[in-house]
């Protein structure tokens, strides 16, 4: 909020300032910057908060759950159904991973919606964070595919029923389509989070700078904040759904 720009008397907070990395504990190992930043802080916070919440609410489990326990159970069931629907019985082994992934992204997205002024930050609005997650999934799914099907996993690139003279065109297209997975997965999450947060900040800036007329942008911010919370949830959901769809391709290798 401190940085302001523009002349002519009206000052507006820079809408991109919220994406700046701040190093809380500068640290360097062998020329690589491994500082503990605000991004790391929010990721640690997400892990600690979810672990604490899930462990505490599920400690004294009763058959008829209380409010908090039923939140945990609803989350569990929601992801469980999603994984079962998209991967079948073979995918149940990977449920803990997808559950953690979903909750991690969801909580990071929602923590970013907290109005903490100078300190608020959304790690998922940085492409490197989302790309690291997507790359992990991409490499993991590819390894699982080759591990389950051996070299036969390459058949994914040559769908059955395609005449042989089409294969020189189809195979590169299929390979490119496979390679787009981590890109579309990471860009979707990052772009949605960044655009939404920027929009809110711009509207907020107008609301502050326009004086009495600022009531317009302020009113507009109310539905957009709600929309942003919906997007925070949806993007975590889409990320988890796509992960289980990719996992399904690797486990069951059905023809498209």
């Amino acid at each position: 909020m401190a940085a302001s720009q523009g002349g002519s008397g009206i000052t507006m907070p820079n809408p991109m300032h919220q994406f700046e990395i701040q190093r809380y504990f500068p640290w360097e190992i062998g020329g690589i910057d491994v500082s503990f930043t605000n991004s790391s802080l929010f990721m640690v916070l997400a892990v600690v908060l979810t672990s604490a919440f899930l462990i505490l609410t599920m400690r004294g489990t009763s058959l008829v759950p209380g409010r908090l326990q039923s939140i945990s159970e609803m989350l569990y069931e929601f992801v469980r159904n999603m994984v079962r629907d998209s991967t079948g019985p073979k995918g149940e082994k990977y449920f803990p991973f997808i559950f953690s992934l979903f909750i991690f992204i969801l909580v990071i997205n929602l923590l970013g919606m907290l109005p903490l002024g100078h300190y608020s930050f959304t790690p998922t609005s940085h492409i490197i964070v989302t790309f690291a997650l997507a790359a992990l999934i991409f490499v993991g799914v590819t390894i699982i595919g080759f591990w389950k099907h051996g070299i036969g996993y390459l058949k994914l690139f040559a769908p059955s029923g395609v005449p042989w003279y089409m294969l020189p065109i189809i195979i590169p297209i299929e390979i490119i389509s496979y390679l787009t997975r981590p890109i579309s997965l990471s860009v979707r999450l990052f772009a949605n989070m960044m655009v939404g947060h920027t929009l809110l900040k711009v509207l907020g800036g107008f609301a502050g700078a326009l004086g009495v007329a600022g009531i317009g942008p302020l009113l507009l911010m109310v539905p957009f904040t709600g929309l942003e919370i919906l997007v925070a949830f949806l993007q975590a959901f889409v990320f988890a759904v796509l992960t289980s769809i990719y996992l399904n391709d690797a486990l069951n290798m059905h023809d498209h």
Partner: protein
Amino acid sequence: MAEYHRSTTPEDREARKDRLMRQRLEDVGARLDKMSPEAGKALQKPSPVATKRQSIGQALRLGTDLVAGVAIGGLIGYWLDQWFGTRPILFIVFFLLGTAAGFLNVYRTAQDIQKEQAELVRQGKLDLGQDLPDSEDD
């Protein structure tokens, strides 16, 4: 407990544990049904809001799927051109292939959506002939 300690491989044990768990769940489900048959049915039907939320999620996938195909194709072509010094032939070829891959992505996503809808209609959870109850307000 004693039953699953006898099994040999860990996979076996997992499967048995899973089966026992499922049995217990079905047991509880049956008992709940007996207590109030209506409550169970109401819970199983997804609300119109839930299906709507899912469709927004699917719609969001289409845009990036298309763009990512074009971008990846273009990048691969660009790199290969630099490698072989054949600019701009491979860039053009891979740009076109990437565009095709993008359309393929979109086509598959759309297919998945249709399959899901057909499944929902078959289960009687979704009626495409009727408007969703909450669609008057938009």
